[in-house]
């Protein structure tokens, strides 16, 4: 785990509100914290290296771009075949995320999850068919869960000092709160 000083956390908080849209944004970030541009750059680079931060850029709301058919496909797979099935699924360009998650005995046998973000449902279902075919006997079972409604997708910014709030990507969202991480983590869990 990364050791973060209180100053580091304040910098991450500031970054979480979004990079200032000006020619020297890192200098602007550091100024109120008494950090030089150089110090800010060094910290951010090291956080990107150690995985504390990733994918620095535009955080897109997929729904607004027309990617509204979002399917979570869950798979039940024998533990010793998990990695092989994951390799098959992630070989398809339309699979955007793939995670292994703990199943719940008697209630939820699925232990591998992948996401497909598509423009229309019929096309996404075709893509699921292709996955199922490629998975063959590796998977015991699967289910497709389309999103019916998005109530919240990590929105804009929320600070623990001020109020405000969360996506990695979607709209009716600003609530109030004081959780820095919820506002910044984007689409991952």
């Amino acid at each position, binding site marked *: 785990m*990364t050791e973060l000083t209180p100053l580091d956390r304040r910098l991450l908080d500031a970054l*979480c509100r979004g990079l200032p849209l000006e020619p020297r944004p*890192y200098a602007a970030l550091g100024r109120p914290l008494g950090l030089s541009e150089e110090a800010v750059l060094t910290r951010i680079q090291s956080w990107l290296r150690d995985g504390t931060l990733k994918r620095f850029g535009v955080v897109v709301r997929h729904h607004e771009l027309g990617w509204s058919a979002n399917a979570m496909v869950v798979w039940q797979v024998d533990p010793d075949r998990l990695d092989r099935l994951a390799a098959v699924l992630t070989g398809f360009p339309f699979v955007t995320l793939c995670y292994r*998650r703990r199943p719940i005995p008697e209630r939820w046998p699925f232990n591998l999850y992948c996401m497909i973000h598509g423009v229309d449902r019929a096309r996404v279902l075709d893509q699921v068919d292709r996955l199922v075919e490629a998975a063959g006997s590796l998977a015991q079972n699967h289910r497709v869960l389309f999103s019916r409604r*998005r109530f919240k997708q990590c929105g804009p910014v929320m600070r623990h000092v001020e109020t405000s709030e969360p996506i990695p990507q979607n709209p009716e969202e600003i609530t109030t*709160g004081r959780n820095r*991480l919820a506002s910044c983590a984007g689409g991952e869990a």
Partner: protein
Amino acid sequence: MTGKRVRETFSLDDIDRRIINGLQGGFPICARPFARAAKTLGIGEQELIERIGRLEEWGIASRFGPLYNAEAMGGGVTLAAMAVPELRIAEIARLLNETPEVAHNYLRDFDLNMWFVVLTERAEDLEGVLARLEATTGLPIYPFPKERSYFLELKLEA
């Protein structure tokens, strides 16, 4: 629901699309990052800055910056689901939306129909948040923590 509204109308031109497609990661960490990124996009620094501002205003971009790895920062994170009876969907959605630790919340077509992500600043607070939500709703919450990520390349094209 409160919050940033997505503009009813917006139109993306080719340059906007290039920004969306090319800048979902890898933004330069240097003194003049917009200038450097603009160069690869074939536009000027100020134009890139203005266009990113416009994408935010339109609601296409929620933010310009990094994604955070909550766990690497000592935080707690899990996907969780509950089976919410149809008549209670609006009520439970409101409750989850008002819970600051809930980052995403989707209704999906299944018996486990409410799927949400819970994030806490400290890993040890995660369980308490889930327990509180269970107590408030009277519904069991099933946590599905991530055990391994095989892939993370959520890049969508405009």
